[in-house]
């Protein structure tokens, strides 16, 4: 069964139409690259999947169930996670507080007082997750705002992976990273795929997209303009689909150089 099906998604902000009826499907364990020029509507489309934005019209089903009316918390519980470009971390809170934000484990105190957050359990699981990601943090009890960009991203990734997601959306996960860190993110995507977790990767770095995805969807002027099998396409085709119009070869040449 297809994991995620979007059909006819429209979204406008006031007079500005951002999405004009987007269709998109993602199979379980599939890595889909979502590319497009600035303003093509990539982030907006992803936020309609996570529930941050409510689509004006269209339908979204996840594992066959209509999720259009669900709020972001409910969609997370179904297994839809997103790693935001700005990471969306609470910077004054520590590592486990961020990883478990909105889903803190609780335990009863004295058998009847409800809802005491189990911080020890949170810290234990957070440390385990960070270790699984092969990352090193100065201290798990420090405010994440004091960490480097790469370390903060580790926390954001750990938050997305801790609750056994079925779909992980990554918005420009490599944009702000050093070369070595980029490789580890790409390795992570491959590992998620091997574990049967679907990934939607938004990136401007087409080399990354070509090397790690199964399929590439090109978003152009708020529509899915192309749906390419990564194995059967190349940089030139992707670039020409992104820019459309006449000056494709120049853009492709530039991209190939870069």
């Amino acid at each position, binding site marked *: 069964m297809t994991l995620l099906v979007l059909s006819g998604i429209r979204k406008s902000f006031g007079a500005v139409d951002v999405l004009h009826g987007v269709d998109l499907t993602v199979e379980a364990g599939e890595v889909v690259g979502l590319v497009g020029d600035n303003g093509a509507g990539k982030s907006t489309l992803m936020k309609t999947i*996570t529930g941050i934005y409510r689509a004006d019209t269209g339908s979204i089903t996840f594992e066959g169930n209509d999720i259009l009316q669900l709020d972001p918390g409910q*969609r997370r519980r179904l297994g839809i996670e997103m790693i935001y470009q700005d990471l*969306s*971390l*609470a910077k*004054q809170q520590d590592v486990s507080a*961020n990883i478990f*934000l909105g889903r803190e484990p609780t335990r009863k105190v004295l058998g009847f007082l409800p809802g005491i957050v189990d911080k020890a359990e949170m810290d234990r699981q957070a440390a385990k997750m960070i270790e699984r990601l092969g990352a090193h943090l100065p201290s798990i009890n420090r405010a994440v705002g*004091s960490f480097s960009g790469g370390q903060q991203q580790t926390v954001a990734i750990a938050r997305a992976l801790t609750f056994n997601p079925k779909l992980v959306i990554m918005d420009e996960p490599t944009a702000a990273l050093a070369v070595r860190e980029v490789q580890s993110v790409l390795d992570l995507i491959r590992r998620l795929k091997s574990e049967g977790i679907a990934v939607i990767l938004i990136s401007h770095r087409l080399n990354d997209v070509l090397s790690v995805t199964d399929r590439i969807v090109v978003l152009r002027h708020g529509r899915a303009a192309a749906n390419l099998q990564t194995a059967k396409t190349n940089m030139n085709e992707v670039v020409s689909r992104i820019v459309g119009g006449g000056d494709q070869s120049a853009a492709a040449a530039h991209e190939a150089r870069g």
Partner: protein
Amino acid sequence: MDTELASPGMWARAQRASVEQLHIRLESLVVLVLLSTAMAILSPFFLSLSNFLNILLATSTIGVLAIAATYVIGSGGLDLSLGSVMGLSGVAGAYVAVNLELPSPVALAACVVAGGIAGFINGVLITRALVPAFIVTLGMLGLARGLALVISDGRVIYGLPPLMVYVGQGRPLGIPMPAIILVITAVIAHCVLAYTRFGRHTLAVGDSESAARAAGIRVEHHRRILYTLSGALAGLAGMLFMARVNSGDPTAGTNYELTAITAAIIGGTNLFGGRASILGTMIGALIMGVLQNGLNLLAVQSFYQQMAIGAVLILAVFIDQYQLRKESRV
């Protein structure tokens, strides 16, 4: 890689530990001790049991208000209506008891309910009408004060029944009732803020609203609850004050929001949200209590006390911002 870690001085270590473990500012404790020592030297009356109980009594109203300020500011909000809502609540309680002649428990509850309603209105206007909190609560500051004057016809309502007066003046085991109520409120508020999902979400909302939203926290709903809670706590403070002075005074609590917000900021609450502790706020409230008490003992005119509190607020925010700049590695 970072000099702070390479040679951690005792002070730096203690500071970090106090911030991380207890979420309080070590400086605030030092200020409290220094201030108390200075007062003890300056006034022969400062160091006595009866004066200590006086300080506790005076701190109880401000302390309850400061708890409200801590929650709201910790969530990235602001409630300027605390003092006015406190005044309105006291009048409402006195009106219910004296003019409507309803039983004391009903009148006491009316204080908290009146405050809660004012807070709920704040919350709805902020989250649904999308008027900034600064404007909504500034407007409520005027609205609540005006309503208190309308209800009481501009006069102090006297003649509270004994049970209500006991809440303000009673001393079981020699401890003033308001102080007991403050301690109970503070303990509950501390546990909720530090150990429950509600408390952690409050700080997360103040830290990064977008992160909280992405995590599935219903931010607007949470804010409405917080403003309602803030109003209800202002109502509780109004109840304590009314019972202590044995009357419903429509001008009660004037400028108290200034003192309450100052106490919260001194206690380590980040003015822009994301960091707060009730323990710290209680130290802040005690500092304000000792300051006022000391200035009273030294027979300093109350006009100067207002100036002192205002100056302390600005100073506390300055120190906070200065340290944040120092800590950020930009």
